[in-house]
């Protein structure tokens, strides 16, 4: 099976570092970005499967980043992470095409389950898109 390519985006370096280590040890390929802009630079240069994206970041915030990412890679599955429990933010994120909206802090196991589900969805979508391209 293919290795899942993850992108972690959060301005809290410590959080990114810890989560990245734990995800890597579970066999994921992980890249890190500390801002929306950094994330976009990465997304421009290579493909990702799933992105864990913090909502509240200085500069380009999570929702803006989400919009820009989807213009570049429409199929990448974005899981929004937020420290602020607000239905409004969740709804806005989902409306913009996020795969899910998770509140921090959350268990690694929860994150893993979401990542797996998101990846499965992406895989199926890719299969279907493959179908279209056939004559």
């Amino acid at each position, binding site marked *: 099976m293919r290795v899942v390519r993850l992108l972690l985006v959060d301005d809290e370096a410590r959080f990114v570092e810890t989560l990245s280590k734990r995800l890597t040890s579970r066999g994921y390929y992980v890249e890190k970005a500390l801002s929306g802009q950094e994330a976009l630079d990465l997304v421009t240069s290579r493909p990702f499967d799933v992105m864990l994206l913090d909502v509240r970041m200085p500069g380009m915030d999570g929702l803006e980043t989400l919009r820009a990412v989807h213009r570049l890679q429409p199929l990448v599955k974005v899981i929004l992470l937020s420290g602020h*429990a*607000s239905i*409004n933010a*969740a709804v806005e994120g989902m409306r913009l095409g996020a795969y899910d909206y998770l509140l*921090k802090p959350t268990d690694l196991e929860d994150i893993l389950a979401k990542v797996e589900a998101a990846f499965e969805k992406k895989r199926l979508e890719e299969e279907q898109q493959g179908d279209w391209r056939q004559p």
Partner: protein
Amino acid sequence: MGLTTLVRKLFGRDQWRPLIAQRDTKAALRLSYLAFKDLITSNDELLEIVADIEQKLETGSPFGMTYVRFRAVACATHTYRMILCLDKLSARRYQELHFVFAGIQKAIEPLLSGTRPAHATCPLVLRLSDIDATSADDAGGKAANVAEVRNRARLPVPDGFVVSTTAFAAFLAHEQLGEDIRAKHDGLAPDDQQSLHDVSEELQALISAHRVPGRLVQSILGAYDDLAARCGTNPRVSVRSSAVGEDGEFSFAGQYTSVLNVGRDGLVDAYRRVVASLYTPRAIFYRAIHGIPDEQAAMAVLCMVQIDSVASGVACSVDPGRPDAGTLLITGAWGLGITTVGGSVSPDVWEVARAAGTPVLRARLGVKDTRADASPEGGVGFLELPESVTSTYCLTDTQVRDLAAIVLAAEAHYGKPQEVEWALDRAGRFVLLQSRPLHVRAVPAAVTDLDGHADGHALILTGASASAGCASGPVYHMSESDDTSRFPDRAVLVARHSSPKYVKVMARAAAIITDIGATTGHMASLAREFGVPAVLDTRSATTTLEPGQVVTVDANRGAVYEGRVDCLLSGSAAAPARTMTGTPTYAILRQVADRIAPLTLTDPKSVSFRPDQCRTFHDIARFAHEKAFGEMFRMSDRVADVSHRAVRLAERLPFELHLIDIGGGIAQSSPGEPAVRAAAIVSEPMAALLRGMMNPQLRWWEPRGISLSGFFAVATEAMMNPAHDADQRRLGDKSYAIVAESYCNFSSRIGYHFAAVDAYCTDSLSRNYVSFRFKGGAADDARRARRCALIGEVLKKLDFQTDRRGDLVNARLRKYPREALLERLDLVGRLIVATRQLDMRMGRGTPVDWFVQAFFAGNYLFDPEQGRAAAGGSPP
């Protein structure tokens, strides 16, 4: 009539489906299926959270605002995702759901902040002379109470001012401090010592480093200058917490910081320190255990002229250890009162008659070896005292009687027992610094004569009773710095000093004994509040009592006995289990859950099965779930390719089953037929499930409770009887399945009941799974709960990983070889049909185990008469 109009007439409103417009309708159907699958997933997750919330409400097990917020947001996210998925499937046919959702969201969102409505009209600072007990929302409990005593009861209280809760709100609003606090607080696991400690430190650091907005600084200093003008000097002040709710129903005794002896320069900093103490570990814990949302914690700060006291202490207008004795209790020590209330010295104690003239009945000299003083340079200094001073009472009998009169006046004003902090100034005048309601419990009459022995058990210690009641348990020694999480449940806490820090174990402690400590201190107040018997000031508990030794604490008489003295314990009921029920946080969850959990939309055939009839997230989910199936079928109807059509299953089942094939799930031998027989189902997992559902042993069509011997004729007749159709309509309800060669998703919803199977089965073991869910209606119905228990037990025996929460059963089987998986699907099929109408049979009489055995014996009618001989299926 234009083409567009024609199409609309034929297919209903808005039929320009982006997905169907794609040339390959087969691929479009599969893509729709992805949206559909998301919808199913969110439906499942929503049901799981709903079950969890319902369980919390039912059991009252502990939770905080973080729980409420996280679950509400997750429910909203899943509900909204279902709406979005349905939009995709239906080309936005059900737009109204968005409005309904927004309406529910609007009702829920304000509840999640957990805050009280703001009093924007109150100024940032208030003069103590301008407020009274009715000002508690603006000035906090402590300031409001002491102002009441000063301005209404006209008792001596120092002058001062209050930095109001409006000021607190302004401080929090400044540069989003409040939001940052909430976010950090959501990261807390209150049961985890380390997490509590870390989060508390972060929060306090956050607040201590936060800039106080300029206009607030101006107001505070302005109020100080105003006070100085009234005093004619630049007084030092004591800066004390006055949180909303403090000294009210909950005392929060000693949970917050006071900064004593502060000059003008240190005022703003002291303000911040006191505000930060809203988030000490014990304050957070105290709120959590009382179910008070942290967002409702609002801190006003009381600044009073610092009294340079000769002596000070606490007085209770009723002796809390012996409320019926007709006495009041005064404790005191040299210098500032912090030594007494904090429990670091044994104060002098006077028992005074409440009767006229308030004669002193008994006095006991304390061990007042330390004195706290207001230092000339600010702050507090501690001084070791020589023997000559410690051996003298800090008040004369005359002074005690005068003080007693003041205490009784405070009680008379409030009309209920009071606990006051008092100080004696250099001029020999008493002032009151605080007054709060005193928690007292009725004490049972003496059960035995207590001269040395109780029922043969030796009296080993005596002390002062701080909180009435009797309890027994093993001794556990602790000091203030020890990790409270190690404290064993129902142990007897034995400590050198009393300390309010022990609040963290109070919910678990059987009783408390200390060497030193005042029955009028903070810890004593807390012990009374938690109903924990406490005997303090025994002088030698830590040296007399061995760890693990079982003792009985009779706090009604201030005695500790060796072993377990049953005659004492029988008189006092066990402390009631602490639950969230009745707390503010519980009430908020209840309100939030009212807009999430109830299912009011149950009948898809009813005319009121409409978006505008959805009252809750659960209703929206129910509606979207039903319509999503409808959309999948509509779409498959329009697919020209026969391999993707929708069909009805022409077999005898207790429900009408409709199937969509999304690829290789149904044989194409009879194209164009609206109905197929089971033999045409080539989807392996679906075929296995159907085999189970159609198992002849099930005999679900037979009337229950009739002996089965010689019943075959009837059964056969029923099979041939056209009335069977009507029967089917009555039971009625459509069930749906979406199938592919190696996949099936089956779902059946009848009224409140919901059963779903999702399975994937190939030769590749690692991707194989079966997921089964069942939700059985109201969780408080014993029979339904028992049905869930039965289903859960059967699935467990079949190796499923099973999780049962309230009326929701959630089971998964992963990575099973193909044959074994199919066998299990067969049994799951039987289970679904067999348990459909089981409610009536699942009364309290028969153990769930019996039903489990009956199921595996093939007794699918759960007929008590049927022997094992008739066994049909047995576990593989």
